[in-house]
């Protein structure tokens, strides 16, 4: 069964960190990337993220490339379109009302690196953190346990519901349903025979799930957790470094 998680099991510095620390790290990278438009800074942060992935998360360059490939159209658009809107700097090329200038090219590049950084820093979090730890991290940061459990269950049942959906599609195809043919409107209509049983099955499953959860003493009140999240020396070290990093760039940008 396919599990819809991006987590990759490794033994690395980042894998061992508390999810809260990793959330903070990702937040810092995110913020700095959003603050700056300077291609030099964004390139630097991008490279930093790549290095963290390679060295501190032990993720191979192959996986990084594979996961960033879907972003290519977005990156291409950034590089190709920004020059039309930003015509500051030295004009390199002019044709009627179109001017291509150095400023626009640099900005296009900067925005491409910003997009990359936003994704890579999220990957750092998702590649190295199991969903359950992520959820406990959120719960620790103040989200109610019920909400945490709900999110965790939603993740858990994606493959199950997907499996049911495929079975239903097979059953309806075997009764002569052609999903590929027809106009857009017809295609949407064709999904009714798939969505109806899917929704009914999901409701049935969720009412059974409710019984199962309740039958395991849910709702009694104060609970313990098998794995308490604890911040270690590595966490404080990373946290302090991240905060200094953020402070430096905030100061450089605004003060």
């Amino acid at each position, binding site marked *: *069964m396919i*599990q819809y998680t991006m987590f990759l099991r490794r033994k690395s510095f980042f894998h061992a960190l508390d999810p809260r620390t990793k959330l903070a790290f990702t937040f810092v990278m995110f913020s700095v990337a959003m603050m700056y438009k300077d291609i030099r800074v964004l390139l630097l942060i991008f490279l930093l993220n790549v290095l963290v992935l390679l060295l501190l998360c032990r993720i191979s360059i192959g996986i990084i490339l594979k996961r960033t490939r879907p972003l290519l159209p977005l990156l291409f658009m950034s590089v190709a379109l920004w020059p039309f809107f930003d015509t500051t700097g030295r004009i390199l090329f002019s044709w009627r009302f179109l001017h291509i200038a150095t400023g626009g090219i640099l900005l296009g590049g900067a925005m491409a690196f910003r997009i990359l950084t936003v994704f890579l820093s999220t990957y750092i979090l998702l590649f190295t953190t*199991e*969903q*359950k730890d992520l959820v406990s991290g959120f719960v620790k940061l103040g989200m109610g346990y019920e909400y945490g459990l709900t999110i*965790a*269950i939603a*993740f*858990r*049942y994606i*493959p*199950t519901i997907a499996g*049911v959906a495929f*079975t*239903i599609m*097979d*059953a*309806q*195809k*075997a*009764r*002569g*349903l*052609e999903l*590929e043919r027809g106009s857009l409107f017809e295609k949407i209509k064709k999904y*009714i*025979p*798939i969505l*109806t*049983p899917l929704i*009914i*099955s999901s409701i*049935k*499953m*969720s009412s*059974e*799930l*409710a*019984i*199962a*959860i*309740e*039958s*395991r*003493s*849910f*709702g*009694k*009140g*104060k*609970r*313990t*957790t*098998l794995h*308490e999240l604890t911040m270690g020396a590595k966490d404080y070290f990373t946290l302090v470094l991240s905060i200094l990093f953020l402070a430096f760039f905030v100061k450089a940008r605004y003060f």
Partner: protein
Amino acid sequence: MIRTESLTFRYAHSHEDVLKKISLQIGKGEFVAIIGASGSGKSTLCLTFNGIIPHSIRGDFSGKVVVCGMETHLFPVYDLSEKVGIILQNPESQLFAMSVEEELAFGPENLAVPRTEIERRIEEALRTVRIQDRNAFPGALSGGEKQRVAIAALLTLKPDILVLDEPTSQLDPHGKLEIYSLLSELNRQGMTIVVVEHETEYLAEFAQKVALIDQGSLVGFDRKEKILKDTGLLSLIGVRIPDIVEFTARLKERGYLPTICLNEAEVPALRIEVKTGFKRRHAPQREEMVKFQNVTFRYPESEHVALKDVTLSIGKSERVAIVGENGSGKTTLVKHVNNLLRPTEGEVFVNGEDIKGKTTAQMAHRVGFVFQNPEHQIFADTVFEEVAFGLRNLGMGEKEIGERVESVLTRTRLAKYKETHPFFLSGGEKQRLALASVLVCEPDILILDEPTTGLDLKSAREIVDLVMKLNAEGRTIILVTHDMKLVGEIAERIIVMKEGVIAVDGAPEEIFSDDELLKRCYLEKPPITRLAEKMGLGICLTVKDALERIK
């Protein structure tokens, strides 16, 4: 341990009592089975044992249920769940964590049990259910493993009683046996077990007492020997009689035996005259209907080869059963017949024609495929519209659609429900509706995936009769199942799959006489087959077969 006093319950928005004045008492350490036809109130009864009814599922509740001295309507479910653990039919809906360990920790965490104690309980529970990998994703386990994890997740709450509602109905024979061995082991350690079960065969072996429920009333509660041997009562209520009981009851009628027996061991050595020269009617030469030519199949982006170089021929109006453990390639094989899957290598022919270029929808009027769970295909507002769907997809005119749907509904005995919403049909009726909605396209080949799972005796009987009738009309039947009784009733040829290849292909007599082969393919010899063999009757898969061979 559990005591009910004139327990009566009616679901909100319902006009009929599901449970009617049930009074019963289950003692500590007992292994009790609850049996009864579909809709008799068995599952509802289970849900009253840990307070889900009346606390979470509301309705008119009267009388009382006392569990370990606690009146259930006075205590919240989370307190009762420390005493009673409950397992439902579908393992998938009970495992909601991302790992086995988390699943097992959930209960004690809710009770604020200290961490070291939770760890200790997890260790112990995993050892009991024999699951090793505590980091495994529960969704990816086999059915039997899932149900064992679900049981372990209750064991960490340290309950005194386990209540299981048809825990094995979705498992293969191997998984079923795993669960029942586990339950009897827990029972030996002092756990009280209450189980709802269709398959009385297992109860004859494992249970101590049996409660018989009919339309919400308790009609019998006694030692299993008493209840299971009461063939008159069981068949009146529509509960499957264990094969050995049925067989020995008939032998008793004929004067061969003084008493009815519950299992093979009870049957004394008998002198029975066996009909000699008994041979199953030989299958005549038939024109070829389905042909697989060196078919290999690999799921996309997977290294695993699901079918390996399969060559196969099925004749017109043959009745073939495809058996084998889960993951052996049974379903993968039959999905190739209507192009739900396309071979990675090799060709499939239907009625002499290579089906390579066809879509599954284009095959619908030739190959009917009835999936296991009818709820996975029912979507329309009326039974009529549900059946008409296939014909509308073929673009047929309203008048002809009307005629054909009417005729199919009559044949499947659903005509009176024509304008009913399918939601209101019983399990057996839904299964017939699924069959009808495939039959309406008049396919020459009918593929049935576990068509009787979860059905009670009467509904299952109706499906078998219908399938045999369709076969007599000349349709080819391909049955995918774990149920050897069903195989015995329907099939004249068995194809055993193992790891993506055909392990053996032959008549039931050949296959069930090869003990080594059965073991290798994880096939279980049904009790009646074992008994008949011991008595020198040869290979029989059903009671009918065995009786026919006695002079």
